[in-house]
């Protein structure tokens, strides 16, 4: 079988995009990988994720080989700092305009198909002011804690390790005033971090303030271990307000199992900030005339079939479609790659599939 000459365009070099690029390239098909930022690896690298749930695997072990492959393989052409500005043509013969964001130069390329993997952004907790994020010291997001864990040093603004840490779940998730969807991974990630905090600071007390625990599938192991091995406590309820007393953080919430309001002091509050579609997704949707769903994620033709954008030759993968974990994003990238390769081979051989 002869591979088509036109490359496959992959937009976004996160877990899904990198995996898609690798799979396509390994099939012998050239890949054009366009990334808006200056570095490859997407969210896990950009936010310096320490380890990945559920088995505490260092991020580099998962992402490193993918990045290395895409940077060194002759089939992969990487364009950093670029976005796709528009397109025309038909499957097998798309003409895309690629714009360098710094020089504003526009390059035209011909590609056979397009894989959109523009990923997500963490919810900006300043939008929900009740948690005091951005205004109060020691109120941080899970992404910032991840960086601290990577440095192996979890401390408050005064440089002291916290004695009592509260994780607040569903910040910017499952809330009509912010984002109504579930971000699917924050429970698992928060619990993973809680365990890591306990490993780092065994004398600390870690509390998880949750509405529901959604450690889906095999991630449940994290939930069990956090209780059974690490003595992490879970409080069912939602936090109404975090107040900085000048020394500590006063967390006001309700323990719904006791049916009573609580006001307890903590040294550190970690917000499990949700996942939302980023500006890259919106921009790509505009450039490629893709439809967005009510939440601003890219809408597949059938909600259950993520890779099918409804436009022939354009495939979707990763967290630009729905909130998902790294493991799911990798599979989605692979699935989209399969679709691109399949389409390429059909167009070459003029064989209907």
């Amino acid at each position: 079988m002869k591979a088509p000459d036109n490359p496959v365009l992959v937009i976004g070099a996160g877990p899904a995009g990198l995996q898609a690029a690798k799979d396509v390239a390994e099939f012998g098909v050239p890949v054009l990988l366009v990334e808006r930022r200056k570095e490859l690896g997407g969210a896990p690298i950009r936010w310096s994720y320490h380890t990945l749930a559920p088995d505490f695997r260092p991020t580099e072990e998962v992402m490193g080989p993918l990045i290395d492959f895409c940077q060194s393989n002759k089939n992969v052409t990487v364009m950093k700092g670029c976005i796709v500005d528009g397109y025309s043509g038909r499957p097998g013969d798309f003409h895309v305009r690629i714009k360098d964001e710094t020089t504003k130069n526009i390059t035209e390329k011909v590609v056979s198909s397009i894989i959109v993997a523009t990923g997500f952004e963490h919810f900006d907790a300043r939008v929900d002011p009740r948690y005091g994020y951005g205004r109060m010291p020691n109120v941080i997001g899970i992404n910032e804690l991840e960086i601290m864990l990577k440095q192996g040093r979890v401390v408050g603004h005064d440089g002291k390790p916290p004695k009592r840490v509260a994780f607040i779940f569903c910040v910017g998730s499952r809330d009509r005033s912010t984002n109504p969807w579930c971000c699917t991974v924050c429970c698992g990630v928060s619990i993973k971090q809680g365990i890591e905090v306990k490993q780092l600071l065994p004398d600390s007390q870690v509390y998880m303030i949750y509405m529901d625990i959604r450690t889906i599938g095999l991630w449940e192991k994290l939930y069990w271990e956090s209780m059974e091995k690490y003595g992490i406590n879970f409080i069912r309820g939602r936090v109404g307000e975090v107040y900085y007393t000048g020394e500590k953080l006063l967390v006001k919430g309700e323990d719904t199992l006791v049916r009573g309001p609580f006001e307890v002091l903590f040294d550190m509050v970690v917000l499990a900030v949700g996942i939302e579609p980023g500006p890259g997704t919106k921009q790509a949707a505009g450039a490629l005339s893709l439809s967005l769903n009510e939440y601003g994620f890219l809408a597949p033709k059938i909600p259950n079939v993520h890779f099918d954008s409804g436009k022939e030759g354009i495939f979707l993968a990763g967290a630009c479609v729905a909130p998902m974990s790294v493991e799911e994003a990798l599979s989605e990238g692979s699935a989209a790659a399969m679709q691109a390769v399949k389409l390429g081979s059909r167009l070459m051989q003029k064989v209907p599939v």
Partner: protein
Amino acid sequence: MADGGVVQLGKDEELELGKEDAKLLETLSSQRKAKFAFGTTEDYLKMLERMKELEKKGEIIVHHVTDDYDPVGVRTLSGRVKKIPTRETWQHKSCGQCGHIPGYISAFYWIMSELGVSYVDDTNQTSCTAWNYYGSGTSNPVALSAVFLRNMHAAYERNAYPLIHCGTSYGDYKECRYLVVMNRDIRERVRAILKKVDRELVIPEELVHYSEWLHVMRQEVAARRKFDMSGVKVAVHAACHTYKLMAEDYTYDENILGGRRPAPTSSIALALGSQLLDYSNWYDCCGFGFRHILTEREIARSFAYFRKIRPIVRETHADVLITHDTGCVTTLDKSQVVPLAQGYRETIPVISDSQFAALAMGAHPFIVCQLQWHIADWKPLLAKMGIDWQAAYEEYKSYLDKVKGGMKPAFIRSPPRHLQPRPHTKAFRVDEPVMS
């Protein structure tokens, strides 16, 4: 009716409460499915536009904050600039203050006299009846609005601008104004009532609370400061009815607590050079909450102590708690008696912003500020401000003896009943202060 149960404007921008709507609203309210809310900030701004239209049509008279009142502009929560008159104000007193916290009003009058600002203390004022409105939970918008407009007309005919002391009246009037402007039915019925008492439908362009007046006058007040306040730690309680009813119309300032708390009262504490401290329960009611004070005084008293006083003392260790409504001063102050008797030791003096400002300006703590009526111990505060309260108290006692002997009491200065003609002086400025 919108889904959320909020009354929305009709097509002609009238708030038409038809019989069916009213019934539905009543049912929903009784089932606690809807709350009677007056729309959004946008609706509020529309109401102001509507007021201008009605004035143009000649349906109502608008009492403008003209240059004669030397107005100062402040930012409100809606982002709009609100004009606060500084002179020739008509003092709309609170029905509770003279009995419970007399120093609150006498200190305010004293400040105005000290600053040489003319004002009218009219005897021709009625109580706003909002107490009953909130106390019973039932509403008679026509009656309430009629009382509101009757008082506003009383100010208008004296050619003085109404300055409302009571937080509840202030909030209630803002709601009534919304109803009168937006609802033709209420407007016409109120007009008929006013006609019977030979008054016209006069709506003030701005409804102004006295704390806003102190806010814009704070630099003048600070300029006459007699005592060094830099060592005084202050906590502020803002009255619910000033900033929670029609919230978009109360003063906020980015330079004061980052604009996350109402600006007045905090601003006067800062202007006087004292240390302003924040605390976690700042948003909570003082415990007065009408229904509770009427039926559940034990709970109101306990709430005032356990949810306000104790956290404030524990978190801030402040020397004084200042607030700007007679209900708040009374509740927060008097509710400390029982806990103190029971052995709880956390206590803090509670005074109004006018008393605080007057004390700083050198007013007599007893003859003017009437601190002797306060329960919580104010002596450490006076000592910290550098006021010799013992000498002042002796003075006060001899003053009382003189009064017994037939001297005319002087603690409330002879209130001016008429305005004096005066030349117009200042140009309008928008108050954009720098954090002191």
